[in-house]
């Protein structure tokens, strides 16, 4: 436990976003996670992204399940809505919330235990449905709350704190997502906010489910020599496949007009999204194409077989249509429909039932 609250005094140069808010206005209560937990850095990245996007804090909903990761939602945007649900059931609750109020920004935070074990089915179907939700998996390869047993994402051969190797194959959320139709797949590292913040921003704006796997080391149970999810191991095997930046519609400048000294600017590729925003990719790997699902899948397999941790905004489907779009629901959020329209009464129900006779 940390006993004092973070003092409410700021650096005078702290910038304000277009809502007149500083980063500090996007903070939550003090973290009670272990000191040095990767999850706290993910929290900081979420705060930075939400501030940069100038999300009105009362227009966001934070959804989570159970686990160290799922505590995270308490640590940012304390003025936002939130639901800390049953273990592994965050996607269901998020689906319901999203169905009722499509206007909010949905930020789901889960972990490898919550999403890849007990909640695996929930995750898969939320991906299939393409729920409009940022889905962050804080992935550390162990069950931290129960003292560090291997989770479903532990790599073969990775050693526990006691020195025992894992002998069961891992579920890789990125490969899983690609194989079941995810429209946005990314992997980041809690120790690299320069990469993570743009991914989160793009994920929040993505129309559909943005699956973001974040390697987020468990400093207490999985940060030792022999672990493949430690800070040191991740840094050593980290490989950036592609660099992505989120460009809001108002800031959009075609790459040709962009004045930049970066020598890689020639390799810039803009992928336009539905709302007029753009995800700007800078090539790191030769001819990497972040819109080619099969190629990305192949690339990930190849690099992972070579022992690397490929990262970046790995795949995006520019044609993504979220659940509301596919189902053709009304544009207005359900909560805002007049009662007579939402609940047209017994006669309307009878008429509907007639259709099925």
């Amino acid at each position, binding site marked *: *436990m*940390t*006993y*004092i*609250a*973070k*003092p*409410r*005094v*700021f*650096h005078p*140069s*702290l910038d304000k976003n277009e809502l007149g808010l500083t980063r*500090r206005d996007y903070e939550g209560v003090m*973290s009670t996670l*272990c*000191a*040095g*937990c*990767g999850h*706290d*850095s993910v*929290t*900081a990245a979420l705060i930075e992204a939400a501030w940069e996007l100038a999300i009105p804090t009362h227009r966001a909903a934070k959804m989570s399940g159970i686990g160290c990761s799922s505590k995270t939602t308490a640590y940012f945007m304390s003025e936002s809505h939130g639901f800390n649900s049953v273990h592994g059931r965050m996607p269901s609750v998020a689906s319901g919330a999203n169905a009722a109020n499509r206007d909010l920004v949905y930020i789901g935070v889960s972990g490898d235990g919550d999403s890849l074990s007990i909640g695996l089915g929930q995750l898969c179907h939320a991906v299939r449905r393409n729920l409009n939700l940022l889905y962050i998996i804080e992935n550390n390869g162990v069950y931290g709350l129960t003292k560090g047993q291997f989770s479903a994402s532990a790599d073969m051969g990775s050693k526990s704190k006691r020195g025992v190797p894992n002998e069961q194959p891992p579920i890789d959320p990125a490969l899983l997502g690609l194989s079941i139709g995810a429209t946005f797949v990314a992997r980041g590292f*809690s*120790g690299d*906010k320069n990469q993570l913040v743009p991914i989160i921003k793009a994920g929040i704006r993505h129309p559909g489910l943005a699956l973001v796997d974040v390697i987020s*080391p468990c*400093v*207490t149970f999985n*940060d030792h020599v022999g672990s493949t999810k430690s*800070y*040191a191991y991740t*840094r050593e095997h980290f490989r950036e496949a592609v660099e992505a930046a989120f460009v809001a519609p108002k800031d959009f400048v075609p790459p040709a007009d962009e004045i930049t000294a970066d020598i890689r600017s020639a390799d810039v590729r803009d992928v336009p999204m539905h709302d007029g925003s753009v995800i700007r990719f800078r090539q790191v790997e030769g001819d990497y194409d972040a819109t080619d699902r099969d190629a990305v899948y192949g690339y990930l397999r190849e690099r992972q077989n070579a022992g690397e941790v490929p990262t970046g905004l790995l795949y995006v489907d520019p044609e993504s249509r979220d659940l509301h779009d596919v189902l053709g629901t009304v544009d207005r959020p359900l909560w805002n429909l007049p009662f007579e329209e939402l609940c047209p009464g017994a006669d309307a129900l009878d008429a509907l039932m007639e259709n099925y006779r």
Partner: protein
Amino acid sequence: MEPTNVGNPDYYHKVVDCQWACPAHTNVPGYIRLIAQERYDDAYMLNWESNVFPGILGRTCDRPCEPACRRVRVEEKPVAICRLKRVAADLRGDITPRFPDIPKQKNGKRIACVGAGPASLTVARDLMPLGYEVTIFEKNDRPGGLMWTNIPQFRLPPEVLWEEIDYILDMGVDIRYNAPVESMKWLLEQDFDAVFVGSGAPRGKELRLPGRYDTDHIYIGIDWLESVAFGHTNAIEENVLVIGVGNTAMDCCRTSKRIGGTNVKVMARKSKPYFKASPWELEDAEEELVDIVENHSPTEFVIEDGVLKGMNFDIVEWHENDDGRLVSTKLDEAFFPAEAVILAIGQETAFPWIEDDAGIEFNKWREAVVDRTTFMSTREGVFFGGDAAWGPENIIWAAEHGHQAAISIHAYCSGEDIRKRPPEHMNLVSAKMGLHEWSYSNDYEYAPRRKMRHVRLEERLRSIETEVEEGFDLEQTLTEVERCLNCDLQTHFTGSLCIECDACIDICPLSCLTITHNGAEAELRTRLTAPAENAEQDIYVSEPLPQTSRVMVKDEDLCIHCGLCAERCPTAAWDMRTFDLLKPYAGQDAEHPYSGMGIEEMSPGGFMSVTP
């Protein structure tokens, strides 16, 4: 940038802004914590060690520490450091048993001090415990120098003054009253091994305008205050003009208000931003209904039939010329009636008693040529300090001059090189008491600076002996001590332990920390989490970190020493460590370490001590 060498005591010392700004380097946060623990004796002794006159300074110090206080940069008002010093003095018990022992067997060296002001008294305090025989020659029948003659009793009660002076005299100092030294050559012929001149800056500056010598109602401020102190003067006319707007002018106008002056005006040539008086002394004068009139440049004393009627002034306006100098333009003229005028436009040193062939060189302003490090004049064995050295300063500077001169005198009398100064050391002790417990109160106190209560106006103006400031009560003290940011609790970083998890960076409320690639300082300052724009404050740069070879950078400017970086650090790469400057005094060196003044360890529970 090269990795910062925190082994040099100066680095962490500079982080403690108040201590760094204090001429005597008093351990301010240290004594504030002792006050918080109600350890008033310890707090007093910690002060006494470095500034010698805690009770006096707790009322009269010029407080260079307060404008330097970090709190000014984080919010607005500094910690009321000076007021807290007085709390320690007011609430102390009998601390005399803790004073250093005075050897009965003397070391055979005899030192003469000229003038019994704060500089000479400090020399005596530092040398008596080493076995010296110190003789002080004082022209008045009382000690204290300007602390007695120039600081009015309503700011500094005499009993406070005498008590702290007696602590020193009771060490066995041979003090000779009514014994002005009239000849340096005579003094040098006496059997002394060294001479210390602490005779102050006793000559008030003159204002030679028409009419100056045609009346006896024009007074020199410091002489007039002295006359009031000795009871020779106990009244003044109703309409008084005080010329000058320094702290002496404030004492003159406030004294006038108490002994008959009803219409007292302070006449300033310049405008308010250029006033020399401390802001709080100006405030106190204004509270006592003294008019402060700016932009009035005196031109003439108006005398009719040998009687002072008032003064003529030019009303002026100031602006900077191309060279950046202030120049005035006359706008108009004005007459101010007065029956008495007090001149408080500065003071200077005066050595009519030092003969030209005494071997002591003077510069063209008749100031003695004194070495800034050793305090020795051009004649071997003759040292200067306090206002006598380089003109008017204040009590805290006089005390520090006394310490340094004592170090030189001790080296000189021991046949050692006086240029070789004893080095400063430091202790650095971890403040960690438990998982989330520190040996200091690390939570941030939002309360504004507590305001000193004053005796009611009518009551205080009735007598010159009524002390205006009532001191802090318990509530004020307990709140004010919490406002201190504990800048001596250093954020100490061990790069080899860092796993670059960013926890410290994420938690830091003032955006002080960055992990980045190293670079040249000017450029590095621009690409930190928050730009490090205050060039007066250092930035810390670590060794390259183990995992990525980047460096940890900390901008010291706005750190509030809350300790959250250390609390959120999984590997204890960040630790909070209590910094204690070990400042050498006469007789203390590597072989004869720091005295400690009987103060028990400042940080109970500390387990590590580093002396670089």
